[in-house]
């Protein structure tokens, strides 16, 4: 192994050896080796929770590692190296959430905190800054202008500015975390060209993506992580989308949790959606939901899954199509939805689900003001009783109704968000990413709760990017891709592999689609 490394020393840019990292006792990276060559496009793939982001955070100095060595371009990086140190050495990262400042121009963003100054007086030399920025833009032939304000640019062009920002600091390595998740297909094509251009100019690009066709189209090598461990590194000639997916999922597909017979629930549909279209978000979405059925909606980020359920709950408008509730036409609006027995557990708990600074009683009370008040007079006693009911139904801990919800653990916060609907006379529960960011124990309890609800006759729509969650929990899965339903798994057995293939556009038998 060591001999091998030495023989290739000249072509190696980054060498991570036995990286281990754990968060509060949970190991998320276990002795992971990861190496990058000069001027290669390297894909890093794995399921949610495989450890991709943690590995990136360790390399870029955002999080200190527990053990292991990192050598970048001949420099040993200490265990607690900082973000700034990594940046200085030439490691640039482009996160999903762009870090540009909207009020400033392209040039101002590129040179932020490194502005060229007029000699002597310490004022910014705008002429030089704009010229330098334009020279950099022209060098890579990006379709940008140095003086354009950031807010006038599309997401794709903003990403290009991020890339330039990294390049202006002489980045040798640029890490892109799901760069295409918010791009259109033509923008994606542009980004691919630019990535190849970066490679041609000697920059190494690490590319994290859930879209197998992209990984297939771009990468020179692929590193596959699973459950915090390195599975394998695939060389160019070994890369095939089906193979990567098989390696990512990895387990033998026998257990009930990964392979499950789908069973279409028969009976009168509670909710029917026909040809729902919201231009730019989703198109021709049709499905029906039976009483007591759990319907899963799968798809990658940006596939339109969240947008569909938001439209059904009445948050966002749609252009065409209709929704039927118990066979009768129904015009979605949030207040009508709640009055008709819908509940929504939104995807972003902190921003949309909880009210962190007020007590649990009021969090649960707010969706139930109709039942706890008479002629607009709220009964504090009834509100408290509802809160206790929620605590008992979902085993919320601590059992203190007066605690501000922001002080609860993530899992218990999510239970409050579910609980404020559960204490109602619920008919349809829409639950978006039910277990994002919560621990295993709370996950299992939530699964049990959802299944119990379904047995009691509540229909559930579960949107999730967690494939084991879907295959374990739901009766039926529809898969969205680029705003359209591309596949439905309704009968027989389905595996995570099948769902992932459909989501990323590899349909039927692992053939590469488009």
């Amino acid at each position, binding site marked *: 192994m060591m001999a091998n490394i030495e023989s290739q020393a000249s072509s190696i840019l980054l060498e991570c050896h036995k990286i281990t990292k754990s*968060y509060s006792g*949970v190991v*998320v990276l276990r002795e992971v080796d990861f190496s990058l060559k000069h001027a290669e496009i390297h894909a890093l793939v794995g399921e*949610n*929770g495989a*450890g*991709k*982001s*943690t590995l990136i*955070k360790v390399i870029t100095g955002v999080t200190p590692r527990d053990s292991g060595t990192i050598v970048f371009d001949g420099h040993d990086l200490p265990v607690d190296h900082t973000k700034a140190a990594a940046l200085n050495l030439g490691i640039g990262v482009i996160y*999903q*959430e762009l870090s540009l400042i909207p009020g400033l121009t392209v040039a101002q963003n590129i040179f932020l905190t490194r502005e060229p100054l007029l000699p002597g007086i310490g004022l910014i030399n705008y002429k030089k800054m704009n010229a330098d920025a334009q020279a950099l833009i022209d060098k890579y032939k990006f379709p940008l202008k140095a003086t354009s304000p950031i807010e006038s640019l599309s*997401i794709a062009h903003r990403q290009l500015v991020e890339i330039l920002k990294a390049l202006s600091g002489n980045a040798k390595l640029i890490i892109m975390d*799901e760069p295409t*998740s*918010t791009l259109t297909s033509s923008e994606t094509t542009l980004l691919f060209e630019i990535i190849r251009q970066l490679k041609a100019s000697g920059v190494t690009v690490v590319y994290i993506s*859930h879209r197998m066709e992209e990984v297939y189209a771009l990468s020179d090598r692929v590193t596959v992580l699973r459950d915090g461990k390195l599975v394998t590194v695939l060389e160019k000639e070994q890369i095939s989308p089906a193979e990567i997916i098989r390696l990512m999922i990895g387990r033998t597909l026998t257990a009930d949790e990964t392979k499950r017979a789908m069973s279409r629930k028969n009976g009168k549909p509670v909710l029917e959606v026909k040809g729902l279209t919201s231009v*730019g*978000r989703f198109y021709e979405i049709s499905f029906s939901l039976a009483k007591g059925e759990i319907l899963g909606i799968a798809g990658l*980020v*940006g596939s339109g899954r*969240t*947008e569909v359920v938001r439209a059904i*709950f009445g*948050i966002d408008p749609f252009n065409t199509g209709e929704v039927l509730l118990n066979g009768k036409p129904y015009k979605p609006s*949030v*207040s009508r939805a*709640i009055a008709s027995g819908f509940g*929504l557990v939104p*995807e*972003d708990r*902190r*921003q*949309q*689900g*909880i*009210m*962190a*600074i*007020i*007590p649990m009683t*009021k969090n649960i*009370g*707010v*969706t139930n*003001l109709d039942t706890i*008040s008479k002629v*607009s*007079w*709220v009964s*504090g006693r009834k509100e408290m009783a509802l809160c206790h009911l929620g605590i008992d139904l979902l085993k919320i801990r601590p059992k203190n109704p*007066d605690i*501000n919800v*922001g002080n609860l653990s993530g899992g218990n916060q999510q239970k409050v968000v579910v609980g*404020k609907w559960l204490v109602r006379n619920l008919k349809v529960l829409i639950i978006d*990413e039910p277990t994002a*960011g*919560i621990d295993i124990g709370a996950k299992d309890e939530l699964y049990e709760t959802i299944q119990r609800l379904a047995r009691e006759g509540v229909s559930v729509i579960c949107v999730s*990017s*967690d494939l084991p969650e879907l295959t374990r929990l739901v009766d039926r899965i529809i898969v969205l891709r680029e705003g359209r339903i591309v596949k439905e798994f309704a009968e027989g057995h389905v595996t995570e592999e099948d769902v992932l293939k459909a989501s990323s556009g590899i349909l039927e038998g692992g053939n590469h689609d488009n």
Partner: protein
Amino acid sequence: MTIKAFLAQFRLLFIVLALGAVLAMIYPRFLTASNLMNVLWSVCVIAIMCTGAIYTPITGGIDLSVGSVAAIASIVVNHLMNVMGMPMWPSLLITLVIGTVIGLVNGVVVAKFKVTGFIVTMAAKTYLFGLAMLISNGAMIGIYEPKAFLFIGTGRVLGIPVPVYIMLVITVLSHFLLKNTVFGRQVIAVGANDVTAKLSGVDPDRTRMIAYSISSFTATLAGIILASLTQQAYAVAAQGYEFNVIIALVVGGTSLLGGSGSVFGALLGAILVGFIDNGLNLMNVPSAYHPIVTGLVILGALILNTGVERPKWLKLPARPTKIVTRVEPHPGD
């Protein structure tokens, strides 16, 4: 109410009583019935403003126009009665309606055009002041008629000034509106997290519009009482009162970041500010020093309030773009 909030309220009561005790020990004149009446009288106008002004900060906004609204109310009510010759009761009613509509306009701009309350009500404060100057020709107008009107501010029943009764009644009403009604819950929810509130069936726009309307309604009422009390209609009469109101609210435990507030706390806050002012008067401190002391008090109260209540840095910055609704989570990563 949480135990903490409960204790906080009583802590404030204790502080008010302690300050009163100290003042009484140093200046025996403080405890005399006439001096206490004076304090109560001066506190009334601010306290009445607080009962309505409390709703905007709880929704996460603010109303800086209450002083100008009170001033224009004093001028309008006098104009209706003494220039246009209208009887008192219709004049009061019309003035209250006009004042409430001003608040509704503020609320509509805040809710529908997504302009922050600070700017909207700052603009309102300015144009209302101009309007007040215009109607009154910038003059200080004495109000001598009708006698029934003057009774509102200067009259006494059982030895206690009429404004004190009005203050107590409206404080109790506002307390129950905030603590025990659907609207009160909605105000708190909107201030705590308006996205969550919306997804839970609350209409944040409607809630905000009503909050600003109520704020303006009580400011109008306070303006009417002020006019009767001082027997004047004057455009600069209530200038700067908005800051006294904010001091009283914040000292009384209302978070300027939204989500919590106490009407009785605000009343205690107003009394505390009144005590400080009265104490400075008794001490013969030159009036130039009063704003300095009051300013330092608001600063201290703000530090205590924001530092403990809700660390703003815990909130994630808003996404600059629309539509993009989620970012792939990496649980466990």
